[in-house]
């Protein structure tokens, strides 16, 4: 039997954020009279150290067993106050918050009404607090292994960092070779290093590392489990006609089922297909090529079109990027730099050729990038502001094409003849992004790429614990940024594995097996696969590690056999009663 509630209530001023619109002293006074409340105070900043000390001291001096903090959103400081209460000796699940900032002071102007609303919110939180039970914190062991999906620069870098830490990495690649898109490149900006010089050592290290298992011609087909304990099935795509798979040396091709503790997604991107911009006539004219085709041409040292050495070479930026009509609102972040690189290489290869870049904005933000752009112009590359609208061919000059554009700095429509036109094609989410998204339950952002947990503070985490993002599957980026993010993803993936356990949320749904009829509706409705039917006893059981406490099962259960701890019907109804009384 729980002892009688002894509740402490703390009203935060949040500087003037709350105090300017809510009479905090009045709210504290009113709270003091609520049933179960032993002490009610207001303070400038409850989240500050002295604020937290206040709670701890009151717990000791007044024998509190419940704490209510009326301040900001629980998303902001619930962990802070739970920790403070725990240090003071109160179970962290017997702390309740009233949001009188975002849901009160920030959205109201009238102080009197704001104060009244804050009083109600506090009364509601107190009513719930009185009924909160103690919950135990739990943890589960982890499997020391990391699955890395994608064998490009991102995936290989992440796998190597994991392996160097002594944890085994399983690298799954769809293709018959490692290297990803970088394998299609010739030289890289801004130092003009050869792409194969970057890639070969990386591939060699991956293939020979004792802690890396490479699975080529393979894809992840099934993922079960949760952070620390994922069960992954990998299916072979067959080695096809491509000859000997290079990964055979690692002796891993027979593997089908892998258990790992965390997952790094490094699935990369698709290259924009310029046929979706028919006005450029990409499929009509041999003079019009993509930047990737240009990489091949530069590697071969052959820029001729139908045997003719070009005299005028034009580059068109932003093809398939920054284009809302195409559904690609994003900037692909690499095209400005690779165009500077390619245009500069053309100037070096063909000193007599006139090289012109048509652009909207030049974005050269990486280290050494602006300097590289300066050098390209220094080499005589002409930059003309205005993006090309259309390409056509005149019957009178069939060897060339005509770029139809406006030079926006001159304010002059122009027709620009060129022998070779390079379309700076951008990056798109991979076509199979939705498959991976369903497989791993990863949300996507509006641009179609995978969504990170927080754009600034958690850029490699995802909404799914234990699954991390590396490289262009999250957003377009260049090689240095990809490597940096891959290393960050590897470190994050290692955190639970090196700690050895993962904490488990205690406020989960539980089944009262006496009431459960085994209908399975909870199994159908759960987005996280947490409930499962025990066939023998014909009851549902909820895996507390998988449960995210969304409550869908609890409201669906026709027998009312499922209780969402910390949000029980009794607790929630008491909150509602306090609001309407």
């Amino acid at each position, binding site marked *: 039997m729980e002892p009688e509630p002894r509740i402490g209530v703390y009203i935060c001023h949040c500087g003037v954020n709350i105090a300017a619109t809510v009479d905090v002293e009045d709210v504290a006074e009113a709270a003091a009279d609520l049933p179960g409340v032993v002490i009610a105070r207001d303070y400038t900043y409850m989240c500050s150290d002295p604020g937290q000390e206040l709670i701890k001291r009151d717990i000791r001096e007044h024998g509190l067993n419940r704490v209510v903090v009326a301040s900001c959103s629980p998303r902001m400081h619930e962990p802070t106050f739970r920790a403070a209460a725990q240090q003071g000796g109160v179970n962290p699940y017997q702390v309740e918050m009233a949001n009188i900032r975002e849901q009160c002071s920030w959205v109201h102007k009238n102080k009197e009404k704001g104060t009244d609303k804050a009083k109600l919110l506090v009364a509601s939180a107190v009513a719930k607090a009185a009924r909160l039970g103690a919950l135990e914190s739990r943890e589960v062991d982890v499997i020391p292994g990391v699955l890395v999906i994608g064998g490009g620069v991102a995936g290989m870098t992440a796998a190597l960092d994991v392996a160097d830490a002594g944890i085994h990495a399983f690298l799954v690649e769809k293709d018959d070779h490692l290297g990803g898109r970088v394998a299609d490149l010739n030289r890289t900006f801004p130092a003009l290093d050869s792409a194969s010089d970057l890639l070969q050592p990386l591939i060699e290290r991956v293939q020979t590392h004792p802690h890396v298992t490479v699975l080529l011609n393979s894809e992840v087909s099934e993922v079960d489990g949760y952070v620390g304990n994922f069960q992954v099935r990998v299916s072979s795509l067959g080695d096809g006609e491509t000859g000997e798979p290079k990964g055979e040396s690692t002796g891993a091709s027979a593997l089908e089922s892998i258990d790992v503790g965390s997952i790094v997604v490094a699935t990369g991107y698709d290259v924009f297909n310029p046929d979706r911009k*028919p*006005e450029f*006539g990409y499929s009509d004219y041999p003079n019009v090529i993509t930047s990737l085709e240009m990489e091949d041409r530069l590697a071969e040292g052959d820029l001729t079109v139908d045997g003719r050495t070009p005299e005028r070479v034009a580059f068109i930026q*932003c093809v398939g990027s*920054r*284009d*809302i*009509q*195409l559904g690609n609102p994003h900037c692909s972040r690499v095209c400005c730099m690779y165009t500077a690189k390619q245009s500069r290489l053309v100037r070096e290869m063909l000193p007599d050729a006139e090289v012109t870049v048509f652009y*909207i*904005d030049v974005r050269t933000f990486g280290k050494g990038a602006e300097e590289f752009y300066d050098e390209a112009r220094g080499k005589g590359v002409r930059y003309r*502001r*205005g*993006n*090309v*609208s*259309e390409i*056509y*061919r*005149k*019957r009178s000059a069939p060897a060339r094409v005509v770029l*139809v*554009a*406006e*030079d*926006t700095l001159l*304010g002059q*429509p*122009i*027709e620009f003849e060129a022998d070779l036109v390079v379309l700076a094609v951008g990056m798109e989410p991979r076509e199979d992004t939705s498959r991976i998204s369903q497989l791993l339950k990863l949300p996507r952002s509006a641009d179609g790429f995978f969504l990170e947990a927080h754009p600034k503070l958690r850029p490699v985490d995802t909404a799914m614990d234990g699954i991390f993002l590396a490289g262009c599957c999250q957003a377009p980026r260049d090689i240095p940024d990809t490597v940096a993010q891959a290393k960050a993803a590897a470190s994050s993936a290692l955190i639970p594995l090196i700690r050895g356990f993962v904490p488990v949320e205690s406020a989960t749904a539980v089944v009262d097996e006496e009431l459960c009829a085994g209908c399975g509706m909870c199994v159908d409705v759960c987005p996280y696969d947490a409930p499962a039917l025990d066939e023998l006893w014909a009851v549902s059981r909820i895996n507390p590690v998988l449960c995210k406490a969304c409550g869908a099962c609890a409201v669906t259960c026709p027998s009312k056999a499922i209780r969402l701890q910390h949000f029980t019907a009794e607790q929630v109804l008491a909150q509602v009663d306090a609001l309407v009384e």
Partner: protein
Amino acid sequence: MALKTAKMAEQLELFGCIQCGKCTGGCPVARKTTLNIRTLIYHMLVDSNMDVDAHKELWDCTSCFTCVERCPKDVQPAELIISLRGELVESGRIPETVGTALMGVFRQGNPSGLARQDRELWAEGMEESLARAKQAAQEGCDLLYFVGCIPSYDQRIQPVSRALLRTLEDAGLDVGTLGTQESCCGNEVRRMGEVGLFEMLAEENGELFRSVGARGVVTTSPHCFNTFKNEYGLDEMEVMHYTQLLADLIERGKLTFTKGVVPEGEEGKVVTYHDPCFLGKQNGVYDEPRAVLQAIPGLKLVEMDRNRERSLCCEGGGGRMWVEGTNLEERLAFQRVQEAAETGAEILAVACPFCLLTLEDAVKVQGLDEQLRVMDIMELVDLAWKADSEE
């Protein structure tokens, strides 16, 4: 007349513009007049006032909507021109010919200002069919044929309308038409900036269509087709250009040709097709007109370099049938017929009454009439039908 720019810039969501220049770069008239839609947008964004009167080049726009198609930020540049014209219409400062056309629509239901009771003259020689179709519309029919102003009154286009009605009847369709009740669709009226008159026409015509209760409406002109499809809100009706309907009939085997347009033993005729802006660029109808041409025996279709999404505007849209614009010398139609002639084609096929008139005129001025003949696809269909009916 100084226009306060802020409100219009906001209404038209011009703030999305990144000044990339694809609009002006792709604009067919920007190359020959001072019209620069990108700088107009820029002025709207950075200036507080605009002297709209000073921009005589506003009347150069053909509303081909290439700028709208090309804009990566989904700004609708052409709508700015329409709105600015609207300001001029509002204050009555418009070219006289535009005023006359608008007045004609207001009084007689057509921009030529010809008598409403003469709107049926196109059906000369097929009065029985017309009477049947009018009766059908009265009693409620499956398909409504909207003839349009130019196809009703212009002697050059009238045969196209006749051939179309006859073909629809022949295919066994339950087709009706509105006769003198039909009024201008308003597509050009809206593009000349007369929004109020357009809304009136849309309401009247829309009500008329609904009273017929037809499942679909088919038009001679891509211009009528465009406004019915995109601006009338006829959600319950399927709006079709006649080339779509014919392509569908051909595909389903309801319309077939056996003899074709060339007597047996003679070599086929090379035909090239000019995509009308209001059918192609603005509504993505590229394949159906070509499918009709390819179904006619004796025709060999070749493409101009600028085809489909890159088709060159004939300069007949956006009210330009009634206002010359600021550069009469270099007509786009001249360029276009040269491009057609360069393909070696002897027929330049079109699917729009405006294109037919502008390109045919250009063929004459350019002295190409010996080698190139401009024909509506419907006329070629009619030739093939006549060949098959001569037993």
